[in-house]
């Protein structure tokens, strides 16, 4: 005689529940991290003469995050970047509408001095552009004109710390009196980053900072960006999608002057919500 005992008895399964639970799992995956907003843009329109370059752009830029702006050429990403420290003021016929705030303060307020704004919101450009001065003076220039150093020793300290933060100190410490233009391209770019840091900005804007650099120098700058994030808020325009994916926490995709999609970088590059974002990052239109 045989006796069989099966434990547990075959489980009853509610198959309808499967789809519903999958949906809940998707919703539960949204992070609940509190972001501290450093800069906020609302309804930003930019015109060059009669041509509108940006349409109703709204975005929050959070503290200690790297936000990358991506999109095809002419999409308005650099225009938007330049709005963040009023670099557009210098362009003839350029008009900015809407509001952009830094710590809740409107940066387009008439009472605000753009020079002081640019000390708080620094910029690094595509092509390294050191002053035709010594390495030391390249960095000391900003602190001097803004009166940030109380004496020679203080200025020395600022120069050293800035070079250190930019990861350049070891390479140049014995030749601070040599011209900055004599450095390699990658070193020059890090010198420009050191120069931007020297005035203790709160936000650093970078306009394609690696597009003129070789892969090794690019890697060094990317590593630097990640370190700088601890102390600064960084906004970077890049044509390299892989770079955006590597260095940033948030990514904003611009197309034809509009902000199409903004969100966590991981999500944008794995599962973008907008078809245009999807087509752009997968190389389906340019």
């Amino acid at each position, binding site marked *: 005689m045989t006796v*069989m*005992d099966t*434990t547990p008895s*075959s*489980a009853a*399964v509610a198959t309808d529940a*499967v789809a519903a639970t999958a949906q809940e799992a998707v919703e539960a995956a949204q992070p609940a991290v509190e972001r501290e907003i450093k800069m906020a843009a609302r309804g930003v329109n930019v015109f060059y003469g009669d041509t509108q370059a940006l349409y109703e752009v709204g975005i929050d830029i959070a503290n200690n995050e790297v936000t990358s702006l991506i999109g095809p050429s002419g999409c308005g990403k650099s225009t938007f970047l330049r709005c963040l420290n009023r670099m557009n003021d210098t362009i003839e016929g350029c008009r900015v509408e809407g509001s952009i705030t830094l710590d809740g303060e409107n940066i387009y307020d008439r009472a605000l001095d753009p020079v002081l704004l640019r000390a708080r919101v620094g910029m690094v450009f595509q092509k390294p552009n050191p002053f035709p001065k010594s390495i030391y003076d390249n960095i000391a220039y900003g602190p001097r004109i803004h009166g940030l150093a109380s004496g020679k020793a203080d200025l020395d300290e600022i120069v050293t710390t800035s070079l250190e933060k930019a990861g350049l100190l070891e390479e140049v410490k014995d030749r601070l009196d040599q011209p900055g233009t004599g450095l390699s391209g990658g070193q020059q770019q890090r010198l420009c980053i050191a120069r931007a840091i020297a005035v203790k900005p709160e936000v650093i804007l970078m306009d394609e900072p690696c597009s003129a650099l070789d892969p090794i120098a690019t890697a060094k700058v990317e590593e630097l960006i990640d370190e700088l994030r601890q102390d600064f808020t960084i906004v970077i325009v890049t044509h390299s999608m892989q770079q955006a994916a590597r260095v940033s926490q948030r990514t904003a995709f611009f197309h034809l002057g509009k902000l199409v999609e903004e969100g966590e970088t991981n999500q944008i590059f794995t*599962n973008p919500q907008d078809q245009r974002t999807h087509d752009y990052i*997968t190389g389906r*239109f340019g």
Partner: protein
Amino acid sequence: MSEHIVKSYDEEFSALHNKLAHMGGLAEEQLASAIDALDKRDTELAQKIIDNDDKIDELEREIEEKAILMIAKRQPVAVDLREIVVALRLAMDLERIGDLAKNIAKRIFAIAEPRPTRGLAGLGQMGRLALEQLKNVLDAYVQHDADKAMEVWRSDEEIDSLYNAMFRELLTYMMEDPRTIGACTHLLFGAKNIERIGDHTTNIAENVYFLVHGETLDDERPKSDTTSMTHVSYSQD
């Protein structure tokens, strides 16, 4: 899906998809032949299945090579990346399905002579169900149809419960007549192989879901293979 700006990228994708379709077709064919050979205890067909397994293995290697090269060259993101990752995983599941079909084929030699009279019908039924599931899931993959894939995912339970029934049935035969232990053990392993094929099929279904939605299906699939906990006591009155 619109085309990539770089045409050769699209050509690489279609080559990858063609290889997978070929591999899927072969895996189906191997399983169908295994069921057929089992029904008829056809050792000639069984040998053919064993010989054909190399083709599936070779295709897996080719798919893996293509996929790795594409990742290195194109640095794919979003749906492109999912297509490639899913292709890699599918190839692995299909290769395993091929192995399991081959294993069934090998057992046909062992049961060809001392013919087990019972248990074969149940095994055939299980096999046909697994084959249908495999066909459906491969269709779902080709059509990027996540709903269809989820249907397969849910119906794996049927295979599991058939397997449970087979397990009990075969144990009973063995206890009734110890001379059948050899053949019944082979049938039991055959049933286990088919149950595993069902599991690989549900893996594929999960991957189709991931491919379409970009989210992993992190639900625990309803498991109803209880044989690992089945206790059988044998007493002689």
